[in-house]
């Protein structure tokens, strides 16, 4: 490996600073003792206490976590079904189209999705609230879940399910008892990814919500209209922590599965082929 030159080091430093300096500032100021956002008044956790005592924020957090949990679960289930169709049925009419349609929401402008979903809910006469936010979040996280699950299912030997069928297991039961247990890491990371995406969404939530149902990001956004308070910094840090935890957990789960695979190969190598 070549040693990084001063230029390499500098570009990494700038890059990281560009990405993370604002966040670092936010986290630091969430522990600010002063009421003024821009003036450092010593270390304090008082704003965290204020946040936790604020019923409106707690209410928003509850809505956010509920929506994220339910929509992540729904997206994982639907994503599994979509992945099975895409991977197992190699040839059918409209396969390329379906594949494109599954992935399109990833690059579709969020505002467009949000408006279209709002229109749909209004047309169908569905009362807007936590339910409509959940439905909308399921729609937009579904494509991410599908991609994660699809890549796992591609690696899975299709003869596993055939073997189960051969041994007397009907096709659907074969999938549940043989394919699903071997997809657990992918299911977990698809769920965590969908959960974090849903948790920090603002645009789609704002468009699809109704009176009385505000998610945490929406609460923060509406508070900011009255100026940035240190309280906002504290909530943001909490959300940031949750998201980071979720992503790290997803990463760990998939890495552990990978290492288990590597250990398997190693063990085989050690015991030899006898």
């Amino acid at each position, binding site marked *: 490996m070549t040693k990084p030159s001063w230029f390499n080091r500098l570009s990494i430093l700038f890059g990281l600073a560009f990405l993370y300096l604002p966040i670092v500032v936010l986290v630091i100021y969430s522990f600010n003792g002063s009421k003024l956002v821009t003036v450092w008044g010593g270390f304090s956790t008082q704003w965290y206490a204020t946040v936790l005592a604020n019923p409106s924020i707690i209410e928003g957090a509850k809505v956010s976590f509920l929506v994220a949990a339910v929509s992540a679960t729904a997206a994982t289930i639907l994503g599994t079904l979509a992945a099975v169709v895409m991977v197992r049925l190699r040839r059918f009419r409209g396969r390329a189209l379906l594949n494109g349609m599954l992935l399109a929401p990833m690059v579709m402008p969020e505002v467009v999705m949000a408006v279209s979903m709002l229109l749909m809910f209004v047309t169908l006469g569905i009362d807007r609230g936590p339910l409509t936010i959940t439905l909308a979040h399921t729609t937009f996280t579904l494509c991410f879940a599908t991609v994660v699950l699809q890549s796992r299912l591609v690696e899975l*030997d299709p*003869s*596993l399910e*055939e*073997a*189960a*069928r*051969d*041994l*007397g*297991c*009907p*096709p659907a039961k*074969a999938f549940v008892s*043989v394919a699903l*247990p*071997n997809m657990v890491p992918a299911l977990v990371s698809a769920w965590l990814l969908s959960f974090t995406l849903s948790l920090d969404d603002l645009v789609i939530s704002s468009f699809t919500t109704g009176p009385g149902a505000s998610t945490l990001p929406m609460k923060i956004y509406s508070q900011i209209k009255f100026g940035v308070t240190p309280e906002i910094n504290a909530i943001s840090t909490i959300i940031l922590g949750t998201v980071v935890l979720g992503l790290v957990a997803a990463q760990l789960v998939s890495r552990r599965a990978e290492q*288990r695979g590597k*250990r*398997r190969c190693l*063990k*085989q190598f050690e*015991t*030899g*082929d*006898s």
Partner: protein
Amino acid sequence: MQSYISIENLAKSYGVVTAVNNINLGIEKGEFFSLLGPSGCGKSTLLRMIAGFETPTTGAIKLEGADVTDVPAHKRPTNMMFQSYALFPHLTVGRNIAFGLQQDGLDKGEIKKRIGEVAEKLQLTALLDRKPAQLSGGQRQRVALARALVKRPKVLLLDEPLGALDKNLRTETQLELVRLQRELGLTFIIVTHDQHEAMTVSTRIAIMKQGQVLQVGTPSEVYETPQSRYVAKFLGETNVFAGGRADRSGGELQIESDEAGGPVRAAFTERVPLDRPFWVSVRPERVELATSGGGLEGTVEQLSYTGVERHYRVRLKSGATLDARRVNLGAESDLAVGDRVFASWSPQASRLLAE
């Protein structure tokens, strides 16, 4: 007479591609039957249709006289051993073997007893608590076999079962398979592209090419009396010369062959019409080389020594090559590269082949 398994006018096509083209086969109870052919000849598709994973486009599969063509895989009395073994990675060896019995709803005591029996037969008793990832290739292969056998299928299907094993272990396992099959008295159908493997294990072999069965017979039948150039060349090595004018005297034919550069003698047979293009073939081990006498004249172009035998490649005067083999009986070779030799063989060693 109805065979144990009969395959009638079976065909399978994927769109415009025909994988299996109108096959008729009868396989008897207790046979070790091989489907042999190069990759893409349709042998695996045929096996998968017998297992129930593929639906035939036309034709029927009958087992003990009962039509099973439309019976789904999980209800067929056949079990398959997969090329990849397809062991369930999340289950222990014991639970892998138990899987099929649990589907049948057998009680725990019976399951345990049958796992014990099969594990003992295949030397897996010490491995029952391990996961497939902790096993060697040979052990996995035995688990896959045990998992299929424990269901006591009417027919065991084996899809290239030894492809992942190294050569020494392969030979050992082939003999082991034959022993097991005799002991259990089951019907085995094996798919392989390895002619040596097919010859070693089978009672009968079906040689396939482009979705069709070219010839069916015992290993010695298909080796000694191939009916076509393809079969002769696919099974072992052989010398093939295009035949020309043929004169019959008694039970013997004198065949003019421009390719061989001289007359070749062969035993007369009514099987091959001589008014259409035909070929004469002779196996290298049947060719005798001498420094004088009659036969086809040529020079030794290459000599290779494999330990068991010496292999000579002779360039005939006609320009064609002729391969000959001599078993190593301890003596040094009396022939060297560049020597002038005469090649001959008995008329019975010649085989007439149609296209």
